[in-house]
């Protein structure tokens, strides 16, 4: 009964989406308040029914209802409850259901918070949002229905792929989807602006915070996925330039560009047309990402050809929204008025430069990811485009961008003074140069480029703080005054500083990890010792243990530094009988920002054990940097100018919860 309720709710959500896709749009054309007013209630109702559908599928998973094909294929009665729940989106059908749930959630949020929007804009935005929703409901119901029943219910399920039974992967997809789908708001706003043929102040005020929120979720999602790969896959890699990763990186880069151009638009009313285009592109790339991951086209063009229903359907959605969006843009964008003027050397100019490099970087990833597919489809030649290509092309593109990052917030709007800013950044580039020299001195004979990259990272980090230090008057006024002034700075200034500092920190982590990573691959017998940097690890022995749905082989290692015991590391291998597969659970020992990484190979008959052991210097900075970026985004989101908002009618605000 429960799956049928879910299925029915999904059909009702589709019906509501279709109403919401047409009626408000029509109302906006006729300026009819009643017709436009349907947008809000239908958005709420759509969310309710999407939530019922999702809850129904979750219930099927929790009760292990194996008569539902999707549950049978991806669950197991012995699986821990948390992974039964997260297993809902650990498969194609369920994850698409999560996708539309989040889409409906965002639509409802716009309806809820959108009281201060012009009525026609709100109606148009919600209608466009619903076109996307309707397309995906049809996709789910037509090609990926999670509620299909099996004629005869099996006794036991096939279990979820063990490497997905992990808390990191439980949170990663929802975060990623919040980001992907969050960009649909910017997209809907862009399309609505193009339909109306004008962009006003409300537009800019609205698009930036929503983009920022989506960007924060996407940043966190990508970062979490990367950390998951790092500890779960067993060889300590954290980024592989895999097409699936690229699929999430592309919208992130476009979103970052959008975030920066939206600032210009909000503050200076310039770059309007470009911002609209970026908003369309960011969501288009999210859709392309969904297509790449969900259609199977990545494995090979041929897998795609053997079961093309889903792929062709997403491709049609893709063509409609991207093609339609861009066509509408080409047709209507010239109607929009260009805004404020600025000199090339100004904060606007710096943000345009940021956009130029980010867009190029995004295009590079795009071409690198899709080129092999296109070449194979066109000529039949099979080539690979892997990490070496991206490192060679993406890396150099980032250097000028990173050099420019500290300049941005220090340049004045409209007309800036480049030399003056360079002077104010003295501390930053001095710190950078000293770091280069010191790193060279310490790592004599090591990699040549790495010290420069470290210097660049330090320059970005110090440069990010320069704005705050200067505006607080640190070293110029008494310390307590400086602290008070710093506290009084707009939160968006703090947000920028944190996010840019985080960028530098991530770079520092990446450079250190990839250049000074120490690796040991050895076979050890019990009581033998292996040394790594200043640490000594002794293999104490192995034990086996029975987990809820796996058997675990755990090895115990004592870590000593200079003779004293530091800690114990217990890496393990888990064997999942239901799928006949096993996972490696690496042991991580954190020392400062560095980590010792230990994962197990196979035990030999004589009790010896193969291990991979790494010392990864400053590796944690890679993810801590992204945490700072997200935190910076949150600070900026809580800025006064966004919290206060446009004036509202008094009687309405009394009904709303305090913000």
């Amino acid at each position, binding site marked *: 009964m429960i799956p049928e309720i879910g299925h029915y709710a999904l059909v009702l959500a589709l019906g509501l989406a279709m109403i919401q896709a047409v009626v408000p749009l029509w109302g906006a054309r006729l300026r009819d308040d009643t017709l436009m007013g349907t947008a809000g209630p239908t958005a709420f109702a759509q969310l309710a029914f999407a939530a019922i559908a999702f809850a129904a599928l979750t219930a099927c998973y929790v009760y292990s209802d194996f008569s539902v094909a999707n549950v049978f294929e991806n669950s197991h009665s012995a699986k821990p409850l948390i992974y039964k729940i997260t297993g809902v989106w650990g498969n194609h059908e369920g994850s698409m259901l999560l996708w539309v749930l989040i889409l409906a959630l965002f639509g409802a949020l716009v309806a809820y918070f959108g009281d201060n929007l012009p009525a026609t804009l709100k109606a148009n935005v919600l209608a466009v949002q619903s076109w996307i929703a309707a397309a995906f409901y049809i996709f789910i119901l037509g090609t990926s229905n999670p509620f299909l029943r099996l004629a005869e219910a099996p006794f036991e399920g096939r279990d979820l792929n063990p490497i997905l039974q992990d808390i990191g992967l439980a949170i990663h997809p929802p975060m990623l989807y919040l980001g992907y789908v969050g960009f649909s708001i910017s997209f809907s706003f862009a399309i609505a602006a193009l339909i109306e043929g004008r962009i006003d102040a409300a537009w800019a005020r609205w698009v930036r915070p929503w983009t920022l929120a989506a960007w924060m979720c996407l940043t966190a999602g990508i970062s979490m996925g990367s950390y998951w790969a790092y500890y779960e896959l067993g060889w300590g890699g954290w980024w592989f330039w895999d097409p699936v990763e690229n699929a999430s990186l592309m919208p992130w880069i476009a979103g970052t560009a959008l975030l920066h151009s939206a600032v210009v638009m909000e503050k200076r009313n310039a770059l309007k047309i470009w911002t609209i285009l970026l908003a369309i592109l960011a969501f288009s790339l999210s859709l392309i990402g969904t297509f790449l991951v969900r259609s199977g086209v990545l494995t090979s063009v041929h897998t795609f050809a053997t079961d093309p229903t889903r792929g062709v359907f997403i491709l049609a959605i893709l063509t409609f929204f991207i093609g339609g969006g861009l066509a509408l843009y080409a047709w209507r964008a010239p109607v929009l008025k260009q805004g404020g003027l600025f*000199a090339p050397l100004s904060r606007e100019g710096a943000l345009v430069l940021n956009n130029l490099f980010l867009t*190029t970087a995004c295009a590079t990833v795009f071409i690198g990811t899709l080129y092999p597919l296109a070449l194979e489809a066109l000529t039949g030649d099979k080539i690979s485009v892997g990490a070496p290509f991206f490192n060679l092309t993406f890396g150099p593109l980032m250097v000028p961008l990173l050099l420019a990052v500290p300049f941005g917030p220090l340049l004045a709007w409209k007309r800036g003074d480049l030399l003056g800013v360079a002077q104010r950044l003295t501390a930053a580039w001095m710190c950078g140069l000293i770091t280069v020299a010191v790193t060279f001195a310490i790592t004599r004979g090591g990699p040549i480029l790495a010290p420069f990259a470290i210097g660049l990272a330090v320059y970005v980090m110090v440069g990010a703080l320069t704005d705050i230090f200067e505006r607080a008057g640190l070293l110029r006024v008494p310390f307590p005054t400086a602290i008070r002034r710093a506290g009084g700075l707009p939160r968006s200034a703090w947000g920028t500083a944190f996010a840019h500092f985080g960028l530098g920190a991530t770079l520092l982590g990446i450079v250190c990890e990839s250049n000074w990573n120490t690796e040991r*691959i050895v076979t050890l017998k019990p009581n033998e010792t292996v040394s790594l940097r200043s640490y000594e690890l002794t293999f104490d022995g192995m034990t086996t243990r029975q987990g809820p749905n796996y058997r675990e082989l755990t090895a115990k290692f004592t870590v000593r530094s200079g003779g004293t015991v530091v800690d114990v590391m217990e890496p393990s291998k888990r064997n999942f009988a239901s799928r006949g597969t096993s996972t490696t659970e690496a042991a991580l020992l954190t020392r400062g920002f560095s980590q010792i990484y230990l994962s197990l190979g196979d035990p030999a008959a004589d009790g010896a054990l193969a291990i991979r052991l790494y010392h990864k210097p400053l590796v944690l900075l890679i993810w801590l940097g992204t945490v700072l970026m997200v935190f910076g985004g949150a600070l900026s989101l809580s800025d006064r100018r966004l919290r206060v908002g446009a004036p509202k009618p008094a009687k309405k605000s009394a009904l709303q919860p305090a913000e």
Partner: protein
Amino acid sequence: MKRLRSLVMVLLLLGMAPAFAVQPDEILADPALEARARNLSRELRCMVCQNQSIDDSDAPLARDLRLLVRDRLLAGDSDDKVLDFLTQRYGAFVLLNPPFNWSTALLWLAPLAVLVAGGAVLLFTLRRRRFVSADPTPLTPDEQRQLNDLAGR
């Protein structure tokens, strides 16, 4: 002997759960040669995996390729010769870093092309807009009259 041992290992691996990438017994005694082998492995694709280098992959085929690379290095081949040898055997698909040729020219030149084209559009737009801002269209007498009316003059 080494061949035989590796064959036994492969057979063992096939029957067992996936092991991890580089095995202790693969590592060459000469650290310089081993470092070269590792660098080469990172540039070579495991043909049965999705976008993994043979250095990262735990597939038996990747292990065969790793051993092959090491055999070639021991035989005294240069890095390029090893890559050539593998390309001849498995095609350009095995190279994660696609070589520059006619079919990949677009791929390699695209980033630069996008950057240059974007920069050119930017320069053009900025220049055109500066002209506009430096020399605004003067008001028509009609507009001037409207402005005077509005200003109450």
